[in-house]
């Protein structure tokens, strides 16, 4: 017998490629933005559409936030341009494209 797939209407979820290993991405303890406590795949409080409209930002310190959240934080004087997690000066990391 030969099975030929003619058409497959599949369903998938998208995830941010945060570099965390796939096995960790269980529904239970998923990663949340350290500022707004909303999952990465959600959107920051000021956005309505997740995904490309509310992207993430990676720091050199390996911390990841919603871009809008972090920029808002950096914009406040109290931030002293530091990463809110480790108080190191925030440096946005260059994303390696197509690393998989």
């Amino acid at each position: 017998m030969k099975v030929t797939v003619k058409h497959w209407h599949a369903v998938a979820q998208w995830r941010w490629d945060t570099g965390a290993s796939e096995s960790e991405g269980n529904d239970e303890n998923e990663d949340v933005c350290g500022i707004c406590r909303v999952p990465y795949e959600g959107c920051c409080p000021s956005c309505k559409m997740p995904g490309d409209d509310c992207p993430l930002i990676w720091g050199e310190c390996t911390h990841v936030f919603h871009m809008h959240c972090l920029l808002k934080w950096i914009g406040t004087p109290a931030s002293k341009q530091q990463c809110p997690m480790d108080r190191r000066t925030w440096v946005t990391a260059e994303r390696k494209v197509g690393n998989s």
Partner: protein
Amino acid sequence: MATAALRSQVAAKWHEGFNRLNRSEPGISGLLSFSQAWNIATDYLHPRDISDPTSVKQHDLASVKAAFDLINRSRRLPVMLETFLDDICNQYHLIVRDIEQYLAEYEQSLDTSVMLRLIFRLVEWYRAWAPIEELGPTIRAAYTLTFQTQLFSTVPPGFVRGFKALCASTLVPVAQHTPQMWEAFEVLGLTDRYEGIIASVGYERIEDHVRETCTGKLCHGCSPMYAKGAANTEEARGLLQNVGSRFDFHMNKTLCDLRTSEIFDIIIDFPDSNGALQDLKECLQRVDQRASLVQALRKAYVFLVLPFLNFPPRDYRISNRKRLLHPGADTKLILSQYVATIKCLRIVDPPGVLLFKVADPIRRYLRERPDTIRSIVANLVGDDDSGDSLVDENEPIQPLQQLETEDYNDPHWDPEPIDAGPDFRTNKPSDVISTLVSIYDSKDLFVKELQVLLAQRLLAITDDNFEKVEKERRNIEILKIRFGEAALQVCEVMLKDMTDSKRIDGHVQSQKASIVHPTIISRHFWPSLESSDIVMPGQFQALQTEYAKEFSTFKPDKKLRWLPHLGTVHLELQLEDRTIETDVPPLEAAFIELFSEKSESTLVPHIWTMDELIEGVGAVDRIAALKALITWIDLGVLKEDEENTFRLLEVKEEAAPPSRIAPAAIDAPTVTAAQQQQADQMRLYWKFIEGMLTNLGSLPLDRIQTMLRFAPGYDQTVEQLAGFMEAARREGLVVGRDGMWKLNR
């Protein structure tokens, strides 16, 4: 002992009397002429038996008149009258004899003409005994009164029946003598005496007529007939004064009763029954029957609402029994009935008091049914097999209305109707959806259910059918007006995912054509989809990986995570003797893929056991697996040789036995229902509650609620929490005593 004074007084009286009778005639000639006149007069007046011809004497009217004149001059007329009336009483047995004779005849034949003859006979008696006109109206009136009193006191009960039948017979147009008959009634004073009976004949006639002409004719009202009736009563009013208005009232009442008894049908037939509703409205304005209408409606709903109570059906109207809703009436049915009721009663009673009274039990009942929300929402999004939308398309779409407190500054403010109950709330003429949504305290439940439903529908759409997405979008736009923009934000994201998926797929296909066309969804914005651990085998795995790689090239910072249990696969199976093309869910596809792998690797029969198959796709529960396999058995591709062992039929086997198990497992919903989600959510909070109770011993419910509010995302009401705690108690996790909860250990 007679004194001299007394004697002289008697003498004076005697003289006076003598003089009066003697009229100053010489000697006693006056006295003689008086006694002669008296004799003539009494003889003339003496009530005779008219059926005995010998008793009839011819009188010389002139002498009779002269005699009366004489008596009158002597002022003996009152005495004369008394004697006359006594005579009537004494002679009345003659009439009674006649009456009894006629009635006996009537009772045998039941012919109303006998009654008519009786009446005329009575008139004859009356006329025969009547004193002459010249005696003046006083005497005549006294005579009439005595005659009638005697008549009424002697008529047997049977007379009334006959009389009624006689009256009724006159309503048939062919009846003759009618004017004479009524005249006779008048003469005998029957009209006054039996007014009630005559009226009741009229009432019955009206009732019959109304029933005859109006029963079952719900679509066109009876008001035209009414108008006619009103015209008649106008005329009648002139003659009969208020009898007309009483008939009018009765007509209203009858029609009202009739419509009330038909209310169930009226509601079912709405809007075709508009005429009947107008009738009801008109009548209710004149007749106080609102309470009985409410009763009837509530009774009607007993069938819908309490299907398991075993009422003897004969207690209810036949019309209800006709539609008797079998036990377990469909929620959808109840809803549509409810909506129809709303619409009907809005016509009948715009302020909404009736509706409030009727609707309350229905609403309470609907609240208890688990699928009410689902039904309402399904209807909202037009996901209705019957196509019979609850919502009137002509109705303007408007935001949900909250119950408002009364605005006393409103110049159009009206006080509450008089029969409004204490908890009646003025319902502004709100739309049907608002009314339905207001069954529940919050609209959140609806929004949640709406998401679930939308998810199901969106995922069912295959990408070559994009108009459907547009249709959903329109739907959501409309619903946004009702529920508010913010509440449906999530739905917005879901729709965007659909468009994005198409765009992304378009791009990926242009890079590298693939037969996979995924819908890529944003998690957190879709209702929780049951997770699955299926691993698609063979070529499917390859297809997935390939597509995911292409996707990551297009969107470098994203990756795909497949939800392998969702979607559909269009397959073509090439078997030795036939080709089968079919659409199947992924699990089915996975299984058949396993079979095809085995057929490649080994030459011996392609046989898999259930356990092997399940292992082959990772983990899947047996019921789902069995269902998938049965699909193939039904298609004649697989065969179950012995239990849990399946063989591929490369060559078609004739007379394939029907699948051994009727599909026991019904389609498990791929998307978790809102209720399920809520339970899951509560499970999360159980951790909090457990910790709380461990640290603090026992706590009252509202304390737990207060503390849980600190937990992120906690949005349950106290009632929901109470329900959850109750469930936990049943599972033996906690014990509740005197409103205090503590851990069970």
